[in-house]
């Protein structure tokens, strides 16, 4: 798609129906058009398969919302989620649609800070601000929000969010023993019942099996893509990979997996023919840490504009979302729920203590991706990831992995300082 043709679409009639603050929101698509054009469309030698994902961005406030509204018209509930812990398979099995809600923009922070304290996580503030400001069509379209107790900022914000949109909370254990797994299994069962109450559909073995396959397929497609992008010279940029990982949370899963696989086919051809987005000498950086929700492209943009390439995201919006699959061989619902619980208990979020699995996972992904250094990204006030970075640094020192820890939010004010640090880190790994 040419940069001139690209435009994030508007539909004021739809937004009015969704009871949004249209006067304010109408400025959003032109802003996003400009940002997307500058950051994504000006990249060199992008794969052709990215055109589908361009379309996803162009339709982010219109086409995809139309699909959600049409599904609602057929009686399918739309459920908003925030975290990789909410088992989307059960929503899909019950005929519902799962969408990850936005929480990656500076624009809604001021709305949130009218109510919430300032010194909490920018992702929580951004998401909350989108709802109270009426400036996110997804938030307006969802019937329910499923939240979880991964951190203090989230769990207490859900209590407040419930006044604006019904918010159900799942309790995430903080350790990984047998007791904790039992608790999580109970939570999963309760979640299943709650979803069924909303959808009005009882879900049996076949529905759950179908949903597990569908979401596994999506995760498998992302795994395949991530393996291909590790090739040197890189067939796709880190920015494009991040975008796809972000879109994974709101697109229709079957179609999405198909398009990701089509892109993978193209990347395989690229690798064979030696076509790439950056020469093989380009410094390769792996990003680890906290999620980058749409449209948070700040760190990747700085890294790749500084002459390096991002080759892996060890993040919730990244490998943490797709590295583990659910066993598909269960023959009973009880066993399906147990296998599902097993899979979700493998997620190595810093909310767990201890969380040593993550240390070895980071090193494993570093080796597999052929990276030359790790930039650990921590959202401001994310205490668990911030403290875990201390341990991660020690592990990296032991393994001889160059490591840079960065703490930032969505505001542009620290871009200059980040640029200096990142460029110096690139100089450091270049020797």
């Amino acid at each position: 798609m040419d940069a001139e043709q690209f435009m994030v679409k508007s539909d004021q009639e739809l937004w009015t129906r969704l009871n949004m603050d249209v006067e304010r929101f109408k400025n959003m698509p032109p802003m996003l058009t400009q940002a997307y054009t500058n950051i994504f469309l000006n990249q060199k030698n992008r794969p052709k398969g990215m055109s589908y994902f361009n379309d996803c961005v162009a339709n982010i406030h219109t086409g995809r919302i139309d699909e959600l509204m049409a599904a609602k018209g057929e009686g399918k509930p739309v459920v908003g989620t925030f975290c990789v812990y909410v088992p989307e398979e059960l929503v899909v099995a019950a005929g519902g649609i799962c969408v990850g809600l936005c929480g990656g923009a500076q624009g809604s922070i001021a709305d949130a800070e009218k109510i919430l304290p300032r010194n909490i996580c920018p992702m929580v503030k951004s998401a909350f601000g989108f709802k109270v400001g009426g400036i996110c069509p997804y938030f307006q379209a969802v019937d329910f929000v499923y939240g979880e107790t991964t951190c203090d900022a989230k769990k207490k914000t859900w209590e407040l969010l419930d006044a604006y949109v019904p918010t159900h909370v799942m309790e995430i254990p903080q350790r990984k023993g047998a007791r904790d797994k039992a608790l999580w299994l109970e939570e999963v069962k309760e979640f299943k019942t709650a979803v069924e109450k909303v959808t009005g559909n009882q879900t049996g073995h076949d529905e759950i099996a179908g949903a597990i396959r569908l979401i596994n397929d999506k995760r498998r497609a992302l795994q395949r893509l991530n393996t291909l992008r590790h090739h040197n010279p890189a067939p796709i940029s880190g920015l494009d990979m991040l975008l796809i990982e972000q879109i994974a949370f709101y697109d229709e899963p079957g179609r999405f997996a198909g398009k990701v696989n089509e892109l993978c086919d193209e990347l395989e051809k690229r690798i064979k023919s030696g076509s790439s987005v950056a020469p093989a000498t380009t410094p390769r950086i792996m990003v680890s840490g906290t999620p980058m929700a749409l449209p948070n492209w700040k760190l990747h943009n700085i890294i790749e504009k500084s002459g390096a390439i991002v080759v892996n995201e060890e993040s919730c919006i990244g490998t943490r979302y797709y590295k583990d699959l659910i066993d598909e061989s269960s023959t009973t619902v009880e066993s399906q729920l147990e296998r599902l619980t097993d899979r979700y208990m493998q997620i190595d979020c810093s909310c767990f203590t201890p969380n040593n699995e993550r240390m070895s996972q980071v090193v494993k992904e570093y080796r597999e991706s052929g990276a030359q250094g790790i930039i650990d990204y921590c959202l401001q006030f994310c205490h668990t990831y911030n403290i875990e970075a201390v341990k991660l640094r020690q592990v990296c020192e032991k393994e001889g992995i160059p490591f840079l820890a960065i703490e930032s939010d969505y505001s542009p004010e620290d871009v200059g300082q980040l640029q200096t640090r990142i460029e110096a880190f690139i100089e450091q790994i270049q020797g």
Partner: protein
Amino acid sequence: MQLGIDLGSRTIKVVVVKDGVLIDHAVAESGFEPHVQSRELIARFTPSRIIATGYGRHMAHKHFADEVITEIKAHALGARHFFPECRTILDVGGQDSKVIALTQEGRVATFQMNDKCAAGTGRFLEMMAATLGFFLDEFGAAAAQSDQDVPINSMCAVFAESEVISLKNRGVPVQDIARAIHISVVDRLAGMLQKVGYVDQVIFTGGVANNFFVVEALARKLGVSVLVPSIPTITGALGAALHTGGKCQAGI
């Protein structure tokens, strides 16, 4: 002849090097249009190559510089010129403070910079000096006149200012407050150094290294010698002038 230019938040520094020897330098305020200011500053030299560093390095690259390197690398090169064996560099400029650890061979092993916050920077000292009615170059001497411990708790430049104002209004002598401000900066810098780790001696560069009270208090606190180059402010520009890489920054 190579020219290094360091476009900092407060001043622009230029150093000219020939066959690895520093032959001239110049310093000017950054002003409102740093690239115009820079051009005037470099006009009297005829270098074969210009290497830019500092906050304005990319703008310099756009207008006149042949190459850019970061302040981290520039300070490493500059400090090694004066102290060929050094392993630890502390640079405190107008808006950044950083600690750089070098390998034995002089490569950057790791570094740490202050978060987006003015505490522990030259700007912080400048603001506090103004709040207490001192010129910046007499601020260290004022602090040295006191031997009283008055704690300043605030980490934030903005809150520290209100803390200072309330100390003034409680009748605490300005010299005691000046000392407290210096100590709070030193504590913060020592914390950064302890986090990165330091070896034998610390090379202190940047404008704040001109403040003898900070230098002495830091040496006392860390129990190591803190060495300052003869003109600490030009270390970055010197490092840039000495740079003989050839790697150009280009976005992918």
